[in-house]
């Protein structure tokens, strides 16, 4: 009989649609973004960071980059601690994405120095050979609009100071996007792997691994430290590095905090020791 009564049919179809909707879409609001998943250390975006986020949205960065780390072994190794619901309470809209043409960015904040980002955004292939990311050097030519950003902060209800707003006049879009990237994932403390036991270089004075070490250095280190370890405006000259093997290993393993240098623990001890051996070999000559 419903096949002959369009109004009844519409009511029945709406009811059928609303059952799953209510349970899986409406009901989760009772748990998500409440005290149940709150993280005290997560803070709202500053005016500069929020503007960077809006530039990220404007240029569709989310089409190629995700911002959520899954609790899977290799994912945590590659990107860091898995994402928690409470980390995203200030994200309107969410930017988790659905495709990783480029790497996940959920914890890119504090991984690289600012200078790395400035150079990489303007010319991605200068830092990451064979990357297919577009150039965004034109961000440097675009000033920010402090009045508009103030309105955005008011709509979002995020705190800001007059100083932060007046400072925007001196900044451009590149400053904003870098500030945003450096904020990502820093709401929770970074977990550092702890090395237990004595560190001993298995390749000490083993010149057979130098070729491997050189290739690994070129792949992971040369973009900042230069092909010949001579350094750049991003990272220091390390051609004459005077540091015990174990300390150098530890430094590369963990990196330096707050955008000093990325940690390379995920590439494994064998490759790390080869890099250490290669770097130390330069000093010897």
């Amino acid at each position, binding site marked *: 009989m419903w096949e002959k009564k369009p109004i009844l049919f519409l009511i029945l179809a709406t009811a059928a649609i609303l059952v799953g909707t209510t349970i*899986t879409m409406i009901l*989760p609001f009772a748990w998500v973004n409440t005290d149940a998943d709150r993280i005290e250390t997560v803070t709202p975006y500053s005016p500069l960071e929020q503007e960077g986020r809006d530039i990220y949205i404007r240029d569709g960065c989310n089409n190629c980059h995700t911002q959520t780390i*899954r609790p899977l*072994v290799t994912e945590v190794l590659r990107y860091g601690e898995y994402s928690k619901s409470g980390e*995203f309470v200030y994200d309107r809209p969410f930017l988790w994405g659905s495709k990783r043409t480029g790497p996940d960015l959920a914890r890119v904040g504090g991984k690289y120095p600012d200078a790395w980002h400035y150079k990489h955004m303007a010319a991605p292939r200068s830092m990451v050979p064979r990357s297919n990311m*577009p150039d965004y050097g034109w961000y440097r030519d675009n000033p920010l609009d402090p009045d508009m950003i103030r309105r955005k902060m008011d709509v979002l209800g995020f705190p800001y100071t007059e100083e932060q707003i007046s400072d925007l006049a001196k900044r451009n879009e590149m400053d904003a996007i870098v500030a945003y990237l450096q904020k990502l994932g820093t709401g929770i403390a970074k977990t550092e792997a702890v090395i237990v036991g004595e560190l001993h270089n298995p390749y000490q004075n083993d010149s057979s691994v130098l070729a491997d070490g050189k290739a690994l250095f070129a792949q992971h280190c040369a973009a900042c430290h230069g092909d010949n370890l001579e350094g750049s405006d991003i990272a220091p000259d390390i051609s004459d590095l005077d540091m015990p093997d174990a300390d150098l290993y530890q430094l590369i393993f963990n990196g330096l905090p707050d955008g000093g240098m990325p940690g390379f623990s995920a590439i494994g001890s064998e490759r790390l020791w080869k890099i250490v051996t290669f770097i130390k070999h330069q000093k010897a000559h």
Partner: protein
Amino acid sequence: METPAYNTAIVKSFVNWSILWGLVAILVGVIASLQMVLPELNFAPYLTFGRLRPLHTNAGLYGWGVGTIFAMFLYIVQRLCKVRLWSDKLATFQLWLFNATIIGAAVTLLLGYTTSKEYSELEWPLDVLVVVLWVAFAINIIMTIMKRREEQMYISLWYMLASIIGVAVLYLVNSAEVPVSLFKSYSAFAGTNDANVEWWFGHNAVAMAFTAPPLAMFYYFLPKSTGVPIYSHRLSIISFWSLVFMYLWTGAHHLLWTPVPDWVQTLAMAFSVMLIAPSWGSVFNGYLSMRGQWHQMKENYLVKFLILGITFYGLQTLQGPMQAIRSFSAFIHYTDWIPAHIHMGTMGWVSMIGFAGIYYLIPRVYGRELYSIPLANLHFWLILIGQLIWTVPLWVAGVLQAGMWHATNADGSLAYSFMETMIEMYPYWWVRTFGGVVYMLGVILFIYNLFKTTRAGEPSPISEIAVAQGRA
């Protein structure tokens, strides 16, 4: 009973415009695919990949997809109800508002005005236009059904009505946003909630806009093309109601392993697997309707499009649930497998049915026989092969990259850096572009064939007189 005079002019207009937007979508898709292998093709700021990709999806889904749905629904509803459209003026208003919205979408997306929420990128002023557009469409369809001269509503009308209601609910909720200015707004929901709402929308937009409407077309055009009725009415009833009930539970399968509550993910996974039943209910109903008629696959080009279309629907609705299982999702999600899955659905299923519908109605609204059936057959093979060249290599690429992402050394460290896995994708991405070009050639032939039909097609015996009287 005398056949009433139908409004065919509006159907012609919607067909023309939807094909134009479809061609734009394919062209932009080919350009965006080239940008993935040749980054220097990103012309800042307006023509970068991040802005072109939403333009590609919006032109494809809303310009070509929804445009075709409008054309087909306006055609089918008049015939199944045996009355003229409730309001010609409202339909004309709908046509121009539709085109204004699509043009507005294209311009604003290139300018960078986007909400970033996938398949719902349009900023709030355009959202308002979409709502008005959909209400105008809904009123016309519902009122036409109300004054119908056929007591029973045929299966196609059920899917139409479900689509109208479903899209309305989904779009209104997911587009809830707080404006900052004319071109900028923030989502009404934050973080994990926003993600869950977005994929409740995203997945069910696929259900309500790109599953129900092509099924409405399929259930109408298959019996019309073969001359034999649908195999089982009871099976269509079961399929319909279980589909509209179960689909809405599954959105979170796009969010497996994310911070969305585990129980929501589990429900999504379970219901996704259960959805195989209603999906294949329609597939079987289509196949069984061909009993004794399979020879038509050779003789009737319309049947080829329809049966290959429903076959890709069947494959899509097996592959989808597979991806919705946690363990497989952990492996394959975020790789190129996923765009290949989507493109089997859009290029294989939805577009195949759309092409069949257009081929079916063109002689009936223009009163001319199709200009060339061999060209239609060539169109069929080009889009079939183009789609397979597009999708199959990317499934392989997805498995390859997933394997590399998850590979570890004996000491538990990662075997590959991200870039080592990405550069492996380049050859596959080149092949994908080639597949897209083959598909585009097929569509250009299709357009040429239709153009020649309207100019130089033989008068059609089916409808010559009927068209003259506006009764086709």
